[in-house]
């Protein structure tokens, strides 16, 4: 299938600004899904609120555009009730880590099989450019007009600490790596996090004088490096790209199957002792 078969063409062109990185994430994600060969009926995409979240309307899967920050909680209910479905949860940086930060760490801890994608443009794009928990110290935004004194999370370190069993990072510039990491994250059995550094030329780019979308992509190219590269040793400020964690861990829905077995055995024992319990 061509990637066009995975989208709802009726709603294109999409609402994102010219050069917005979110469209590039959509592009890479579709390529990953096409490569794996998933059926459209087995995929559920759940998003929150933000420019990023609008991605759900454009893909021809079972899609749910929810409320700000809570996408992972909705996804948890869907996955738990139908474990055979593939859950993909794209979120903005504010969505995932400000208002949704608590759900994010708990989802990582539970290790339920789903793929969380953080479309990190370091800003609240949809509301017009306020700082996010990923903007970082010294950045400019409409709510940090004298420069930001909030420090940023490191999504990778946070996810690792919270217990995610797959953690990756890339940028929109690295389109092929993006599709590759997303594909591996989707295949991974457990909770996977992929941070994709994405450009918002309209807000973050303009406010921080980073130039056009093209300039911002050049910036991603120059300021990132593969994990463990020599370049990183020389210049510790470079941001590493690649897969940081990929490990086997008990998956939540599979573990719950054991709970069901245990509970049913309990019924059986009680039956024999004569204490009937109702199901």
């Amino acid at each position, binding site marked *: 299938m061509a990637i066009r078969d995975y989208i709802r063409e009726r709603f294109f*062109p999409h609402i994102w600004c010219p050069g917005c990185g979110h469209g590039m994430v959509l592009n890479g994600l579709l*390529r990953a899904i096409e490569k794996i060969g998933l059926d459209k009926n087995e995929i559920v995409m759940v998003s929150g609120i933000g420019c990023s979240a609008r991605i759900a309307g454009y893909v021809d899967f079972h899609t749910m555009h929810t409320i700000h920050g809570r996408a992972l909680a909705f996804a948890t209910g869907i996955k738990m009730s139908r474990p055979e479905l593939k859950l993909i949860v794209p979120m903005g940086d504010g969505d995932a880590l400000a208002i949704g930060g608590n759900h994010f760490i708990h989802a990582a801890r539970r290790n339920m099989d789903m793929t969380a994608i953080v479309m990190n443009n370091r800003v609240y794009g949809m509301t017009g450019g306020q700082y996010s928990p990923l903007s970082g110290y010294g950045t400019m935004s409409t709510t940090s007009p004298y420069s930001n004194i909030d420090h940023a999370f490191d999504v990778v370190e946070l996810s690792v600490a919270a217990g995610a069993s797959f953690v990756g990072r890339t940028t929109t510039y690295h389109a092929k790596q993006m599709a590759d990491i997303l*594909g591996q994250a989707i295949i991974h059995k457990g909770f996977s996090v992929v941070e994709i550094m994405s450009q918002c030329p309209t807000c973050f780019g303009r406010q921080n004088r980073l130039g056009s979308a093209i300039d911002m992509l050049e910036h991603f190219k120059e300021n990132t490096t593969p994990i463990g590269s020599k370049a990183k040793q020389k210049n510790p400020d470079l941001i590493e790209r690649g897969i940081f964690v990929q490990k086997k861990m008990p998956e939540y829905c599979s573990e719950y199957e054991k709970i069901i077995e245990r509970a049913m055995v309990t019924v059986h024992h009680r039956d024999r002792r004569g204490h009937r319990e109702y199901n």
Partner: protein
Amino acid sequence: MEEPKLKELVINRDWCKGCGICVHFCPKKVLELDDNEKAFAKRPEDCICCKLCEFRCPDLAIEIISSRGTARRAPTKGLLL
């Protein structure tokens, strides 16, 4: 291995928003923006079918149709692509 050959470079003018990303990052400078700020293939004969333009377009507006099929068989390393 035989080099892929460009059969058609399709640009969806209704979807293209003229961001210029494809133009800037094309290794062969095949693409340009026209007067209406829409991408078009100025030098299709130079295209090496690397598909970087197709992969990076934020608006899903480019498709490279080459003699070796569509995106699925893009020449690349890595697990998936």
